[in-house]
Structure formats: C-alpha cells, structure tokens
C-alpha cells in the first residue's frame, strides 16, 4: 500500500497503482465501495453475478475518469473466482479485496429447506473462502494489502428467522480471523465490517417487500441506540478506513457499523 501519509486518515489517493476487487459490486454497498476505491486512485474490479449491472458501475466509474473493469462471476464457482482474481491482478497489483456479495433468506431453522441452506452457505461463506484463496497469493505477491468482509450483526447475535444467514455470517467472522492470523506475516490484513440494518442493499429490498416499508424501517430504527438505520455511506467509510493505512495495526477485527445495536447483546 502506498505511503500511509502523516495525517492518519484515508484522505488522498492511497490506492494509486493498485487494484481492488469488489464482489457484489453491481449494487448497494458494493457499488458505493467500488466508486470510493476508484476515487482514491484504485483500479476498481467490479464483480457481480449480475454482469450487466457490474458493467454499468464500471462505466459510471470510467465516466468519472476513474479506472474500472467489470466481470460477471458466481462466487460459489471456483473456476470463475480464479478467473476473476487473475483479471484483477492483471489490471494492477492487487491491493484489496472487498467481500460484499451475499444473499439473505428468511426462515426459521425448522422451515429452512436444504436448497435455501446450501445457497446461503455457498454464497455467504464458501464464496468468501474461494475469493480469499484466489486473492491471497496475489495480494502477497503485490507486497500485501487489505481484505474486508461484509459480516452482519446477525453473525454475533441470534434473530428469529435467520438460521442459515446467521450461521453463514458467524462462520465468516472466524474464517476471517483465521486468514488474518495465517497471512499477517505477508502484510495482509483481514477484517470484518459488521453492519446492522442498512438502508441499502439486502435490507432495503426486504423492507420494500413489506406492506408498509417506512413503518417497518421506523420500527427497526427505534431499537437502534442511534435511532436511525445505517446508510451505505456509513458502511462504505468504515470499509475505506480498513483498506487504508490509517488502520495499519488492525487485523482480525470485527468492526460493528450498527449505531450501537450490538452493545446491547454481545
């Protein structure tokens, strides 16, 4: 990573000359992160199962004079993930990996079908494993970098109706701690950002499907100590901070971006 700078922030083009691979980059948080990475000088590699959506984000970045490449990828498929990592490392020495691709299903453990279980575990847990396995050697070859995984408050606390999702995010946390320990000596940091209900991405989709989306959001926000839902920008800023040299001594950590929600439970 480039010079940390002396002012302890993620200001400036600290990703100059490096590629950052963002899974789930076609929408929501992933899109916001891809834009922010390009803004800091990085070559954003926008990966998503929605290849057209990924291309739209890449085109948006290029229209802002940023560097971007899009690729369609199913993160559960090892061959596709390997091709994605190779493409990223070809764009520029790999400096970062942001794991934001995820799916959410709602069902209690007793109602969870094998298909739902497998799909959630594949996308949310095996996907990050495959992406890290493909990216770690390339990050090492580039002299180090930063991996940030999107966890969830539901990776630490239970919630009725989220059996598979909770299991996948809980497993992701410990997978990242393991990767952090195994690759710290390679100057690769691995951390988890753990948002609660964020008014973007999966939660927004769930809310919109409710009979009264605004009422639903207001009820959720009422439980949050900060009395509001998270915004994409809140989570994006934490991810950018973890990608930046301002967090140089943090690895294997879980950073909640949840308005204080987890302070009630963990």
């Amino acid at each position, binding site marked *: 990573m480039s010079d940390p700078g*002396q*002012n*302890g*922030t*993620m*200001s*400036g083009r600290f990703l100059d000359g490096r590629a950052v691979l963002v899974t789930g980059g076609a929408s929501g948080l992933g899109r916001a992160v891809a834009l922010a990475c390009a803004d800091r000088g990085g070559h954003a590699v926008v990966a998503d199962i929605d290849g057209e959506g990924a291309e739209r984000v890449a085109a948006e970045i290029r229209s802002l004079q940023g560097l971007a490449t899009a690729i369609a990828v199913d993160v559960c498929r090892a061959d596709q993930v390997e091709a994605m990592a190779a493409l990223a490392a070809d764009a520029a020495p790999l400096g970062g990996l942001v794991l934001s691709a995820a799916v959410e299903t709602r069902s209690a453990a007793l109602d969870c079908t094998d298909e739902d279980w497998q799909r959630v575990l594949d996308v949310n847990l095996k996907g990050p494993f495959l992406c890290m396995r493909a990216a770690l050697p390339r990050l090492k070859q580039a002299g180090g970098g930063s991996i940030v995984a999107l966890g969830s408050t539901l990776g630490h606390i239970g919630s009725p109706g989220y059996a598979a999702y909770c299991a996948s995010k809980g497993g992701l946390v410990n997978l990242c*701690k393991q990767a*952090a*320990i195994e690759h*710290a*000596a390679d*100057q690769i*940091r691995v951390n988890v950002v753990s948002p609660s209900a964020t008014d973007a991405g999966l939660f927004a989709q769930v809310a919109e499907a409710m009979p009264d989306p605004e009422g639903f959001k207001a009820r959720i926000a009422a439980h*949050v*100590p*900060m*009395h*509001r839902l*998270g*915004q994409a920008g*809140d*989570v994006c*800023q*934490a991810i950018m*901070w973890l990608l930046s040299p*301002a*967090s*140089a*001594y*943090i*690895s*294997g*950590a879980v*950073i*909640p*971006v*949840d*308005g*204080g*929600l*987890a*302070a*009630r439970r963990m």
Partner: protein
Amino acid sequence: MDWNALLAGKVALVTGAASGQGRAAATLFGAHGARVVVADIDDLGSDETVAMVRHAGGDALAVHADVSRPDDVEAMVTAAVNRFGTLDVLYNNAAVQMSGRLVDCTDEEWDLTIATNLSAIFWACRAALPHLLDGGGSIINTASVLGLIGSEGYAAYGAAKAGLVALTRQLAVEYGPGVRANVIAPGSIDTPRFRKVLEGMGDADAFISGLTATIPLRRLGQAGDVAAIALFLASDASAYLSGAVLPADGGLAALR
C-alpha cells in the same frame, strides 16, 4: 467531509496526553483542526504536547489533572468548557499499569488501578455528557487487550479494563443518538510507558523479539497507529459506530 480536516472546529479533551498515545492523538487531532485540551499529571510533558499541537496547526490548553481524583476530573472538564466554550470529543486515554498476581496485589494498588482506569472515566463522562450531548459528541475510551483476555499478573488492570468495555457499551446504549461511545483496545504499543516496564527486565531486546513473534503482524504497535484509530472514532468518518471495541493489537485478539 474534508478528509484533511476531520475535526475542524471541534473541541477534544485528551487525558494522559503528556506522552505516548495521548500525545500522538492530541497532535493528530490538532493537525485535523481541533482545539485540544491536554490533560495530564505531568505538567512539563503537557506543555510540550501543547506546543506540538500548536505546531501541527491546532489550538491547545494544558490542564493539570490527576484522574484518580474526582475533583481533578470535574475541574478538567470545566476548564475545557470555560476555555473553548464546548466539548465534542472526550478521549479517556490516561491509565496506570501495575502488574502482580492477584494474591500479591495490595489494596492500594487495587484502589489506584480501579480509580485511574475505570472510575476516572465514569467521572469524566458524567461531567462531560451534558456538553457532549449538546451537538453530538464522541467518547473514546482506551481499554486494552487485557480487558478482553486473561494474562498472568494483571488482576486489577484486567478487571478495570474489562469493566471499562462494559461501561462504554452502557454509555452507547444510554446516550445514543446524541453521543457515540467506543473503545480502543491496544495490544503492546511502543511508548515511553512500555519502555519503562522494559527497564526492569534483563534483556529488553530479547523480550521484544519474543513478544513480536506472538503478534500476527510481527511488530509492536506505534503511538501513531493508535492515534489514527482515535481520529477515526473522534470524527464523522465513524458516524454510525457506537459501542464498538476496536483492537489496536496487530491481530493478537484474533488468536484468542
């Protein structure tokens, strides 16, 4: 958000700011436009820090405070508000560290450790909260890896720091949305206090290399590493973080 002036116009009070992590944070806060209240028991060191903050571009005031004394803590907050009119950031960094197994820990050592490392933060927050709530404040409390895991010889210290984590979560829940409260949990940071502990040892270099071998990132932390985390927590860059524990430990806590 101006990433080069994250604390423009803010007033920050930093305890234990005469050296080490507190000084590094005070200076960094100043460089980002803050007016900084430098509180410490060491007046000479505080004066030096004030000069460093001013050199970095901020304004600063030194206040003598022994944070193990409630009167000093209250006066420290009053002095900050009297001088700068408000208070936006309270960074409770001051601490004492005495080692000794539980049965060897005297009442005096226990009381001083709990007073300085836990009660002091309660007193400071109680005095500062009315001001912090007036405009959206940030509380940053320095705990320790030893508040999260056990370690031989740190009965009082570990208890105080774990209590501080719990106190911070309580602050986050009770005083959101007006105030955010978060913890930094440093591991081994190469500061003057750390070096002082080493003086009592035979071979300091061997101790350090043995220690760094246990840290995933294979180095001691620097005061600047911690200051950068404090800046993040002090600023709106962390606007939706509250009740969080951010380790500054090179990955150490991930092992346990």
